[in-house]
């Protein structure tokens, strides 16, 4: 294995130090270190963070390899500072059997850029009718712990209750896409002034909040773990705050785009801004940011959702919802939170690793810890060019925006996956 001596790096914003990586672990930190066999990396001005962990990634393989593959998505992840991603189940075929989750897991190992942890579907075919073989997926080589029908809500309350109960046997967690389906039939964007003006069918905030309210009560009733995907409204934050105060075992994520972009982006009718849940209002953004800081929202997750050009270069109503996120998430976090490195590490690495049960991830760089980390240049500013992204798709909502921060290097168990801002494989 390679050894790396990272010189003058600021670990989570602390005073610069050297950091020696050998045999997959951080062996030493301190000033003036030397190691003749190690590759030296000048990290002057760079900040070291534990490798980022994304709890919500769409890798599209199997089924839509024209939009993304496990390999291209892994590369995008590594370039974004990630060392682990959780791959959502809405592939084709759906990841609702041990066979499919093992395939995704194996493809991730072969790509070797990040740890790819498959998420299993809650229901067969995401149809919301009967439970998938959750236990078989849990016992498979992929060791699935998170189950989600993401893209679809587990709307049937009885089925949701059973799913929450069933996964307790193997410390599983249900990640809910909270969207009351009857209230969102034909929905195209956030219901409000802008949707009224644009004549696009509204996706009301209450459709999210009602499901979250129901599910925190169900989770409390059966004593199970619940995770809420992509929280997008101020009202949802209040429901979660209430539930957490009662001691409900609920965690929640927010996406970078819901922290930055408002529904006014739809005014161009460019579907690159179409996403589910939809972009909301400035009031929602303020509430989400505050909740991210105070911990009512536990983590940032990207909901990285690659789509082929033809699925976005069309009429708004016909476009598929979703946007890229892996290569820009840290920049958005920096933009939103500023250089609060400990908070960023908490929301983007330690806590998501803990929720997902990824014990090798989420450890601050320190002697004895796995050398699974990323180096950020916080002073850099970059203009996002869709054509330069490593993802196979181009549907970034940040095209031509200038964002702070750049990932310089990423290490997974001591092996560099990214150096000088370039993926090594």
């Amino acid at each position: 294995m390679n050894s790396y001596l990272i010189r003058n790096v600021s670990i989570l914003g602390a005073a610069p130090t050297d950091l020696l990586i050998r045999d997959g672990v951080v062996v030493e930190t301190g000033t003036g270190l030397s190691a003749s066999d190690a590759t030296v990396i000048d990290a002057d001005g760079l900040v070291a963070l534990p490798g980022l962990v994304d709890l919500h990634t769409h890798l599209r393989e199997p089924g839509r390899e024209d939009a993304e593959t496990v390999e291209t998505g892994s590369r995008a992840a590594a370039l974004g500072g990630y060392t682990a991603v959780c791959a959502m189940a809405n592939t084709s075929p759906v990841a609702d059997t041990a066979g499919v989750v093992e395939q995704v897991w194996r493809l991730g190992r072969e790509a070797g850029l990040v740890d790819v942890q498959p998420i299993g579907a809650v229901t067969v075919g995401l149809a919301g009718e009967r439970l998938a073989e959750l236990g078989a997926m849990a016992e498979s080589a992929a060791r699935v712990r998170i189950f989600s029908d993401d893209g679809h809500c587990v709307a049937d309350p009885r089925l949701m209750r059973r799913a929450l109960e069933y996964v307790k046997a193997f410390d599983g967690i249900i990640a809910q896409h909270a969207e009351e389906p009857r209230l969102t039939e034909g929905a195209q964007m956030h219901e409000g002034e802008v949707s009224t003006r644009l004549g696009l069918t509204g996706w009301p905030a209450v459709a999210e909040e009602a499901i979250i309210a129901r599910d925190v009560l169900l989770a409390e009733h059966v004593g199970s773990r619940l995770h809420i995907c992509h929280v997008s409204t101020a009202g949802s934050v209040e429901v979660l705050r209430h539930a957490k105060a009662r001691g409900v075992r609920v965690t929640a994520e927010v996406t970078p785009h819901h922290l930055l972009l408002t529904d006014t982006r739809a005014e161009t009718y460019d579907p690159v801004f179409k996403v589910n849940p939809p972009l909301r209002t400035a009031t929602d953004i303020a509430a989400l940011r505050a909740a991210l800081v105070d911990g009512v929202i536990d983590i940032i997750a990207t909901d990285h959702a690659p789509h082929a050009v033809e699925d976005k270069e069309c009429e708004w109503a016909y476009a598929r919802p979703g946007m890229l996120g892996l290569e820009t998430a840290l920049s958005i976090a920096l933009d939103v939170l500023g250089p609060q490195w400990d908070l960023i590490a908490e929301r983007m690495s330690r806590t998501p690793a803990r929720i997902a049960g990824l014990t090798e991830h989420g450890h601050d760089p320190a002697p004895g810890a796995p050398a699974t980390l990323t180096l950020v240049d916080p002073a850099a500013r970059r203009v996002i060019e869709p054509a330069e992204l490593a993802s196979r798709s181009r549907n970034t909502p940040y095209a031509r925006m200038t964002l702070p921060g750049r990932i310089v290097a990423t290490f997974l168990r001591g092996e560099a996956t990214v150096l000088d801002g370039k993926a090594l494989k």
Partner: protein
Amino acid sequence: MIRHLLSGADLDADTATQILDTAAEMAAVAGREVKKLPALRGRTVVNLFYEDSTRTRISFEAAAKRLSADVINFSAKGSSVAKGESLKDTALTLQAMGADAVVVRHPASGAPHRLADWVDGSVVNAGDGTHEHPTQALLDAYTMRSRLGRLAGLSVAVVGDVLHSRVARSNVLLLSTLGAKVTLVGPPTLIPVDIAAALAPGTDVCYDLDAVLPSSDVVMMLRVQRERMNDSYFPSAREYARRYGLDGPRMGRLPEHAIVMHPGPMNRGMEITPEVADSPRSTIVEQVANGVSVRMAVLYLLLGGNNR
């Protein structure tokens, strides 16, 4: 002059007034024996219709032909569009054929905006989804102005399914720009709560038609699809007609000079009774004639009556 006409919001008061004044000149042509001007000779206007709308299409077709433009009717049915061609590919095809203007009717809100990104010519929104129909608003304004002599200060009640109406959105925007006072009337299920904030802050909302009629100079009835009752927007067609339909007795509550408008096609017996539709107050047939004049004015001005 603006390049595209996608929304009532594209028109400021001066531009809208210029279109209405030009339409009046165009209307004079319709009275001549030879109803044709050479203004757009050699220019190509494409009517790109993704929805069946014979009345709007022939109105634009007549307008373009009276200006001597070459007109291509591109119906989505039975064409490459029906075979799954994307809007962008269709746009590039029209571009390659040298379309100077594309008049587009589309079931998806915002489709004309997308089209405008992909073609060099002018795009005229002839109705997009539940968004807008700006030339309908222009012809409505033209009709009000010719019947009542002014727009500023008029009280206009727009009655019915505002939520799904592109006619209502364009009318609220344009009429507000031109100084009229709009009151939206209908059941609360069919009037978005934030419509005034979304479109024009001076707009009023009222759920009681009878309360609005005595002070209205114009009542514009919107088409209401009977199927909306299946989505629980209202209990039944009968109850809708009873609460929000315009019949003879209700018409009697209007001021003497008030007019009744409808963009067509009408559901007689639903939002309007035949007695009202066929009364002298009704401008429904006039609106159709005015539509041609207004669309002539729009095409003439967009295609460089005065800017090329």
